[in-house]
């Protein structure tokens, strides 16, 4: 697995305050919450370690102020971490020179901002060509590439509009097109859809999934919204007060929340779209006339079939019967165990 690790963060700290590096040193690199408060520091990111794998969508969640943006900004080096280690493609990112960083940003990283961050004085096309222009690409080449991106996000025909003439959803499409123009390996999205209304938002999420099917980027995606996280994530990381409380697959988070805080997040989660049969099945291996269900099926996809069947249905994994699922298990899975 370690060969396809794209980003690795280890014991990452980011403090805001008068003299963070010194403060961290004085507290052996691990100050307590009280010490932080007393010293007048904000521990925006505290001792966070995780890996992001190639082609994975990692969604970071947490309440406002929990340090999500700061974390992503540390990885993209918009903020300098106070201490810790960070590898990007196996290269030490923290000690990269300014020139190396510019190179990395020009070719390997793309970022989409919550407030779009479009350049108001440039039209759609030249906003999208902007990163290519910075690289020094010729006019023809960059415009051709930008047109391709504009088409990809479905804005063809709007190339000559200025950001002020576009709706929020359209502006964010421009932001996405711009961040993709350099064909980055890693794509950071900081609450890209939260400024949009629910309908456009759902549409943009679908659009995003469609794009990812084509592009297969490594993605770090920030959101407030658990449903959005579930819809998009391979893995979810949940932050609280600067610390990463839990990281795992959506199912993991829903079924085994590490703390009450995580459980609170997962409480209204759409179980039918997160939990797989494997998690709810009983170990009775029954034999039925109907073909067995796959252990990896989402319960929502087979709920109707299970609930309408008089008897439990067998569940198979890799061609072998591994258990069964009946009405009781299905109801528990959909609505939580009765005891609660």
């Amino acid at each position, binding site marked *: 697995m370690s060969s396809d690790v794209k980003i690795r963060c280890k014991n990452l700290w980011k403090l805001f305050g008068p003299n963070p590096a010194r403060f961290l040193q004085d507290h052996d690199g691990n100050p307590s919450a009280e010490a932080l408060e007393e010293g007048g520091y904000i521990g925006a990111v505290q001792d966070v370690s995780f890996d992001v794998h190639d082609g994975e969508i990692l969604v970071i969640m947490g309440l406002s102020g929990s340090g999500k943006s700061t974390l992503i900004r540390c990885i*993209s080096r*918009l903020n300098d971490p106070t201490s810790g280690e960070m590898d990007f493609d196996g290269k030490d990112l923290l000690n990269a020179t300014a020139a190396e960083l*510019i*190179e990395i*940003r*020009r*070719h390997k*990283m*793309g*970022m989409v*901002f*919550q*407030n*779009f*961050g*479009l*350049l*108001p*004085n*440039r*039209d759609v096309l030249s906003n999208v060509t*902007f*990163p290519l*222009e*910075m*690289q020094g690409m010729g006019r023809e080449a960059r415009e051709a590439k930008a047109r391709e991106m504009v088409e990809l996000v479905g804005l063809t025909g709007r190339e*000559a509009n*200025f950001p002020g*003439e576009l709706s929020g959803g359209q502006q964010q499409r421009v*932001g996405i097109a*711009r*961040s993709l123009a*350099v064909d980055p390996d890693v794509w950071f999205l900081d609450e890209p859809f939260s400024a949009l209304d629910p309908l456009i938002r759902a549409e943009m999420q679908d659009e995003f999934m469609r794009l990812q099917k084509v592009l297969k980027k490594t993605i770090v995606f920030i959101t407030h919204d658990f449903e959005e996280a579930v819809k998009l994530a391979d893995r979810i990381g949940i932050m609280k007060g600067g610390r990463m409380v839990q990281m795992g697959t959506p199912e993991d988070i829903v079924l085994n929340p590490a703390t009450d805080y995580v459980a609170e997040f997962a409480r209204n989660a759409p179980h039918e779209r997160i939990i797989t049969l494997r998690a709810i099945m009983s170990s009775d291996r029954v034999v039925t006339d109907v073909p067995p269900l796959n252990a990896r099926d989402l319960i929502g996809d087979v709920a109707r079939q299970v609930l309408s069947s008089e008897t439990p249905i067998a569940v198979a994994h890799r061609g072998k019967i591994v258990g069964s699922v009946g009405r009781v298990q299905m109801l528990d899975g959909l609505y939580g165990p009765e005891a609660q």
Partner: protein
Amino acid sequence: MSQPFQMPRFLAAPRLLSPRLSLAQVPLIWQFAVIIALGLALSALWGGALRWPEAWVIPMRGWITRFFEWLGEDAGIGSYKVRDLTRFLADLLDQPLTWAEYLLYRGIRPLDLPPLPWVSIVLGAAILGHWVGGWRLALFSASCLLYLAVFGLWRDGMRTLTIVIVAVPFAVSIGLWLGIWAVRSRRVAAVVSPMFDLMQATPHMAYLVPVVILFGFGQVPALIATVIFAMPPMARCVILALQTVPPEITEAGTMSGCTPRQLLWKVQIPAGKRILMLGVNQVVMQTLAMVVIASLVGATGLGQQLLTSLQQLKLGAAVEQGLGIVMIAIVLDRVTQAWANRPTDYAARGRSWRFRHRHALAFGAALIVSFALAALFKEASVLPKRLTVTFGTQMDEAVRWFAKVSYDYIQPVRDFITVEMLIPLRDFCLAVPWVVVVGLVGAAGLRLGGRGTALLCMGLVLGIVLFGFWEPAVLTVYLVFSAVVICVCIGLPIGIWASRSPRVARPVMAICDTLQTFPSFIYLIPVIMLLKVGDLSNIVAILAYATVPSIRYTYLGLRRIPDVTIEAAIANGATPRQRLFKVELPVALPEIMLGLNQTIMMALSMVAITALIGSRDLGQEIYRALPTADTGRGILAGLSIAAIGIVADRLIQGWANKRKKHLGVG
């Protein structure tokens, strides 16, 4: 290091007691009373507390004068003299100036070519107006320039314009560079921004004195003084523009892989363009104001003509020339503002090359046509004198007649005000011991802004005393104070009236905007026409120039009160009168006080100008320093005006901030 410092017990003891008797708890009125009593007692014992003894004045004035003389004559390293450097600089600046002169009115001497025909310049102004602001601005610009031509002011107008055109790029680029530098480095900002404060508080005329010593009289020294004077607003706007670029835009630039240079020029400066353009507008207006005043150091043009007319009391001509300056001012202001606010040209999108460059093409055509015309008719090239008109003599007579008729009414009023009000006030001001003023300013500073403010204000006042400028400074304060009181009495009601009805507000604000573009010089014309010379004329001139901010800020302050506040007052049954005095004015007071602040600043800068019609204040000191090349006198008098301004500014700002915090909006 190992032993912490121990305070001796007898010193520490009173400190323990002090919280109960802290100065902050003694009402300011009592503090004032004590200070005044002490000060009067002291000055009764020692005359030096009332008038600083002449013999004890620090001879800074002479030192500065000698320093500049030395700088202008002998300073240098080895055989390289500062004089050579200034001469080199002057020659360098002379080049663009000469070419602009060639082009606009003198004709290209070396090639024996005529200047641009006046017709082409008028057409050019129209095209420029249309480009930045549409048909109305086009018509307006053209007719203002046409005025210059028709009234025979063309050549002088072009002279004035020449310096503006050459000075603006210099001031803008130096300001841009300084502003960028200040944003990049905190240390530079710490040096530069108080310097700009000081520079903007120092009146125009004070810049002229050292420039004359180093560069002599003429167009180039005028240009240099103008550039120095007009640069700070640009730098300020650059700082503001760069600091207000939304962070996500800068970050988007960074993530696009911008180098720092690309980030600045391709992202931040374009994003802050609007504020930068307003900076350019300010530079242009300041430049014009300075060029007019620079006629005192030999800049030719409308300013010089106006100065001469005023000195010879040719008021009719003065009015025509003054109007010429006003025309240029308004056109420059409207055009640069329209340029700053110009929306992206959506209409040109996707149109042909010809359409997108229609203005440049039109100008080319205008050039060709007017050169052709000029070849056929000499009149299209340079309007001959016989085709121009002037109502100077008729107007002179009319003015003289009006003055004679009105004199019977005005004179008693003027004399009454002067004798019964102004002279007693003046004598009172002069009788106040300086110790009392230092004490009062210190106590007020301590209460309103803290110890730093108190020390700064006291230091500034003390400086005026020690360098021997106390008496002219008191006379300045007396003039400014009288004028500002009247300004507020006029401005407050007009501002309130305007805030009540949009129908009133629109014309009032339009008039205010226009009045603010006039160079201060202009305001002398009506004053001389009606009042002759004397303290009252000075006050009226200051008044005419400085009332605008108190109208504008009153209006804005009242308009910015949140609707809920007013609605709550109405719901609580306040009568309109109660509403105004109990709710609106108190809430808007901080804003109104900032208007007062502006009024004082403008009044102080006008003080220097009123020196031209006779006075005994600091402005006069500067004015006198000019022909005698007494640099120390000029600079110190200018700095004294700046010092008065800074003291007033700090105290008022401190008060406004306190008040805002009190209102929960700070």
